[in-house]
């Protein structure tokens, strides 16, 4: 029996557990003023990054409509050319941007009103026919498994209308996947609130 075969027997997924309330000094310590470094933060761009700058902001609400102040939000996205920085995306005709990694992390406890705020760019459509979107993963106390969703942009009306994932989403819930566009004095801002339960419960995907 090869080593590979012996390894493959009896390996089952490790169960997920909640992130708990006290993760900040481990996962986003700079943002929360602890003496430790962090691997990524809310800002995905530098001056050299290509693409249209935007802020992606929002709050997380529990089933009573109370703002969750101890959530951790992570985003992952393609660059302005629609390419992911990853070996599984080897499409060389779409250029990588040396100034864009595509991953961000932000807690909701750092601002007074429980907001997450990411500074990033609008991704290019990652496939022909897809509307642009950003992947979002949310962790919090009381959540034994994290949740995953996608943020689409409400001003991409034409692209959204034909996007395969949006098109398959129940009509009444589609709005929960759309970030609302607003031009502010500080630039383009999209608001994406996440509702864990209730009438506006966000569509979470089975990833």
């Amino acid at each position, binding site marked *: 029996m090869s080593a*590979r075969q012996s390894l493959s027997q009896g390996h089952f997924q490790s169960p997920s557990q909640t992130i708990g309330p006290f993760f900040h000094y481990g996962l986003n310590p700079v943002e929360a003023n602890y003496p430790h470094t962090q691997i990524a933060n809310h800002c995905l761009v530098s001056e050299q990054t290509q693409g249209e700058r935007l802020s992606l902001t929002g709050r997380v609400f529990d*089933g009573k409509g109370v703002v969750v102040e101890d959530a951790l939000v992570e985003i*992952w996205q393609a660059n302005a050319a629609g390419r992911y920085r990853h070996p599984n995306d080897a499409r060389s005709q779409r250029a990588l941007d040396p100034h864009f990694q595509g991953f961000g992390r932000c807690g909701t406890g750092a601002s007074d009103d429980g907001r997450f705020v990411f500074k990033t760019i609008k991704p290019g459509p990652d496939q022909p026919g897809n509307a642009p979107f950003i992947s979002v993963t949310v962790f919090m106390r009381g959540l034994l498994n994290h949740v995953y969703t996608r943020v689409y942009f409400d001003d991409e009306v034409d692209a959204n209308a034909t996007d395969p994932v949006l098109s398959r989403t129940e009509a009444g819930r589609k709005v929960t996947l759309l970030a609302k566009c607003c031009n502010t004095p500080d630039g383009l801002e999209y608001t994406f609130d996440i509702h864990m339960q209730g009438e506006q419960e966000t*569509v979470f995907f*089975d*990833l």
Partner: protein
Amino acid sequence: MTGTSQRDWKSQPPYLDQGYKSTALRAPSQSLVKIDPELAEMTGPAFGNEVVGALDHDLTRNGRVNGEPLGERIVVTGRVLDEYGNLVPNTLIEIWQANAGGRYVHKKDQHDAPLDPNFLGAGRCMTDEQGCYWFYTIRPGAYPWGNHPNAWRPNHIHFSLFGPTIATRLITQMYFPGDPLLAFDPIFESIPKAARNRLVSEFSLDVTEEGFALGYVFDIVLRGTSATPMEVD
């Protein structure tokens, strides 16, 4: 194109758990919506040694101010694998935990056990080419929490892993063998019975360092991926 395995609900806790009260208002009430993983879900961030400091794997040293941290020194080591039996090399692990007295450095931890000025309780490392990782730390203490009367969390270390794609992301907790609090902990008990022991580390005399630290082995199994790179539009 994708070979990402699904979330295995025989291994994973439910979102809503009667015993763990905070799930009541935070668990999604609607079913998860099926999605066919696309490039977005078959890719994810990759981190390298640039995010790991020289002492980040050694929590007995990375928070020192004027002396050594209090408590029982331990070694925590293991392999990261996927469900298909592949080792997962060069992947980032982040950990955080309470100190020996059961107190987190976190500003909102109200437990009146003492902080240890020489212990932060946070660290990280990369798995090596064989998927192995290695931490030195202090055995964390148990601490009370407000879930129900006389509720105590068993000793545990929080683990955060990325794996190769965002579909393999995992945040979990490592427990210790023989901890009597496990049977009373709704977070641990939320896991399907057959899968619970996967989160209990094993004591190992082989890993134990003579005269220095007890050794615990904790293997972690991520979801499997065998995606073929996408080369054309």
